[in-house]
């Protein structure tokens, strides 16, 4: 059972305290509020609970997944959950007592190092809630750094990310402006330049963008920097096995949703907010960071550092209120990248490229379906359907397929990762052929 103390234990403890019963210890709570009626269901035994929760899980229908849109189904090597679910990691708290938390601290240091390597950036934090909040916090840091109050975003930023940004900035005297993309679903430099001014704190660039297409990040970065604004890049971590990195196009902050790195989708959470930046902005970053220190014998040790930025020291003057983050998801990510190494990462990225392009090819051969956009993409792209995307999704669900994300009208956002086999791709095309 959950409570180990026996009746005898409790009596001995009450005697030591000098209370006649437990109720005496509750005298602080006004009697009229104590012991309210609670209409809760009957308690389940572990066996009953297991059966009940299995039955709920079974109500979710397993579909062959072709949806991306910010959360991606990738292969998770068995070693990832086997290691991260060890109780020594799982049931530890935030590593406040560094000497007794070197394991967690070193994994965070290695996570920060792997994120810097992956994104080609100078510094990384220990993690944020998810990609959307990491992006928002980066934009707020850009606002503080520049002292400017206009944040420019692409119209093809993930819709949930837009909403989160709006939520966080609404009461901060910040204006959000959208740069509309071209008919080809990518940004036009001229249009962007026309909206960049000396009031722009930052431009938030998502690449691949919400429709899956890769942007001309180099040119965008130059345009943003030309007005003294900062570039916040939102990227797909797996794509960086092959695609140019935020560091290569001189991003000031680069963030991503780290779920694809060894974490299950779990209906959207927990995610893993990855936040990286140029070194110059390290003291503007919100949240925890681990650094190398020395113990008193000069031995290398790991500690939480630069804590003067954080809420428990600065209170209302802190950069952010973040406290708990997504440490265990970050652990999954660092184990995943350690298993893959640079070669595995490139392999999985190339396989994503290939499967998505093969799927696009197969779909474009189905009568009535077309890929109108010829811009480069990574693992997802937009399909124009002969009927509404809504109807396509309904029909394919009956064939055991999650067809994609409904962009409205006849536009369907479709994704294929390395997990989709050639047979899966064919089954998808065949199912479309039946419409």
């Amino acid at each position, binding site marked *: 059972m959950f409570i180990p103390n026996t009746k005898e234990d409790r009596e001995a403890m009450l005697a030591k305290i000098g209370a006649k019963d437990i109720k005496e210890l509750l005298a602080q709570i006004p009697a009229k509020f104590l012991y309210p009626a609670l209409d*809760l269901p009957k308690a389940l035994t572990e066996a009953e609970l297991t059966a009940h*929760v299995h039955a709920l*899980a079974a109500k979710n229908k397993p579909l062959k997944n072709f949806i991306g849109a910010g959360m991606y189904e990738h292969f998770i090597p068995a070693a990832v959950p086997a290691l991260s679910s060890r109780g020594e990691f*799982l049931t530890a*708290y935030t590593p406040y007592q560094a000497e007794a938390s070197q394991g967690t601290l070193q994994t965070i*240091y290695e996570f920060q190092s792997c994120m810097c390597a992956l994104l080609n950036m100078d510094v990384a934090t220990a993690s944020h809630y998810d990609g959307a909040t990491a992006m928002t916090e980066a934009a707020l840091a850009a606002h503080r750094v520049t002292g400017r109050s206009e944040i420019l975003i692409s119209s093809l930023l993930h819709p949930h990310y837009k909403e989160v940004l709006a939520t966080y900035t609404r009461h901060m005297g910040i204006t959000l402006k959208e740069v509309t993309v071209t008919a080809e679903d990518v940004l036009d430099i001229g249009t962007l330049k026309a909206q960049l001014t000396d009031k722009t704190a930052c431009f938030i660039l998502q690449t691949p963008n919400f429709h899956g297409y890769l942007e001309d990040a180099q040119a965008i970065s130059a345009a943003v920097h030309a007005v003294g604004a900062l570039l916040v890049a939102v990227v797909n971590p797996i794509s960086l096995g092959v695609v140019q990195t935020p560091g290569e196009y001189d991003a000031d902050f680069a963030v991503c949703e780290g779920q694809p790195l060894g974490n299950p989708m779990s209906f959207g959470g927990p995610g893993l907010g990855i936040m990286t930046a140029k070194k110059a902005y390290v003291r503007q970053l919100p949240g925890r960071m681990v650094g190398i220190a020395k113990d008193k014998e000069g031995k290398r040790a790991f500690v939480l550092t630069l804590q003067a930025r954080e809420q428990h020291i600065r209170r209302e003057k802190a950069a952010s*209120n973040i406290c708990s983050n997504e440490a265990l998801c970050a652990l999954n990510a660092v184990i995943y990248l350690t298993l893959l*190494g640079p070669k595995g990462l490139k392999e999985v990225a190339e396989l994503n*490229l290939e499967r998505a392009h093969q799927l696009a090819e197969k779909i474009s051969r189905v009568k009535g379906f077309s890929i109108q956009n010829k811009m480069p993409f990574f693992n997802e792209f937009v399909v124009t359907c002969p009927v509404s995307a809504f109807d396509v999704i309904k029909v394919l669900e009956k064939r055991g397929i999650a067809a994609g994300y409904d962009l409205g009208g006849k536009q369907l956002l479709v994704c294929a990762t390395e997990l989709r086999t050639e047979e899966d791709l064919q089954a998808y095309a065949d199912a479309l052929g039946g419409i």
Partner: protein
Amino acid sequence: MQEILKNKLSIESSRPGRRGIRFAAADKHAADYLPATLLRKTAPNLPELAEFDTVRHFTKLSQQNYSLDAEFYPLGSCTMKYNPKAYDVLSVLPGFASAHPFAPESAVQGTLELAYNLQELLKKITGLAAFTLQPAAGAHGELTGILTARAYHDANGGQNRTEVIVPDTAHGTNPATANMAGYHVVNIKSAPNGCVDKAALKAALSEKTAVVMLTVPNTVGLFEPDIKEIADMVHAVGALLYMDGANFNALIGLAKPADFGVDIMHLNLHKTFAAPHGGGGPGSGPVGAAKHVAPYLPHPIVSHKDGQYTLVDNRPESHNRMKAFYGNMAVVIRGYCYLRQFDAQTLKTIAENAILNANYVRVCLKGKFNAFFDRTCMHECVLTPPDPHTTGVHTSDIAKRLLDYGFYAPTIYFPLIVPEALMVEPTETENKDMLDAFVSAMEQIYNEIQSEPQTVKDAPHNQPVKRIDEVSAARNPNLRWQ
């Protein structure tokens, strides 16, 4: 120890050509699909290890950690209670883990039903009218709650309310949260008894007050006996009462916050509801609201009609989304499991035993480590060491020495109003034998403070590293391998 067995970074053990996992080879290369300008120029500096090397590396790291599964973890305000193994297994069932957030609702009815059920259970134990499961952590819940209050005021003529009142005992997240919501923070001092100073509160309250944020029980482990009166004072000026529910483990089953006038509160599924802390997350911080405030909670919320569960995001008064997708569902599953395993009677017993254990430790250590507020506490007690000015031994030294005795340290130097604070929260899942062992270790440390203070000041002695010079890390920050 031989060089190879030392605690290397993964990158220091890397050898070109070693592989941990192989994927099927693609037929073509990236350059066949993408223009050269869009390609990555240099490979990332990631370690190259075999799978077995990786397993051994992280297993060894895990062993350099104190964890709840292995050690008593009396970390005040963190509620380090047992995390049942069944929930570990159930939270990652393939049906849940592989659900895509944008899958058709008909394909994720199991997840939605579970989320709906948890919303309903949380309503019952708090008495509040609605819950959102979206916030990813406690602090995220606070921000959700304060933005909900702001949306409420904006819609009800309260645009001129610009202040949030926070007692000096509050978690640092409270004032930081209010600031993030665009409010001005008004700090008020506590009364000498550790509770809210009603006169100070009265003086601070005005038509400018938007919210009063209270932690109940508070961070010195005391229940506010005048909570209803405080709520009435807050409501009398048109403000809302926010309850930080991080310490709800002391109240679950014993009292419903709605009964004493709470308008909005957050709960921590990773504290009260037995989800593990994971070394610092992921957590889950559901936010509940009373009826008049409920429409302003962020969207989406799960609703239930005609046997179908739906995510409702068409809620015009809502203050909008707090994160992408819907919340930390894997943690939500654990919270649901917890509430299904215990009925009302058992929840009450859980809170009672959390309170019993804290008071037992407090009384056992009396005379050596006195409670700053020497009276019956709730689920945690805030102790103080013998006068450091006389002994030269500080709370930080005692914390490090406890590690040598095989115990994690209490929360230290918090709350700020207690000098040299040692905040002890044993939780209900520790047995008397463990509490006695902890008390005995504290007594031995007390004796060491008198007889051999240097032993305490030099602690820890048996950890993987000796006392760390934390300042050395901040001077020239090394935050990554090069």
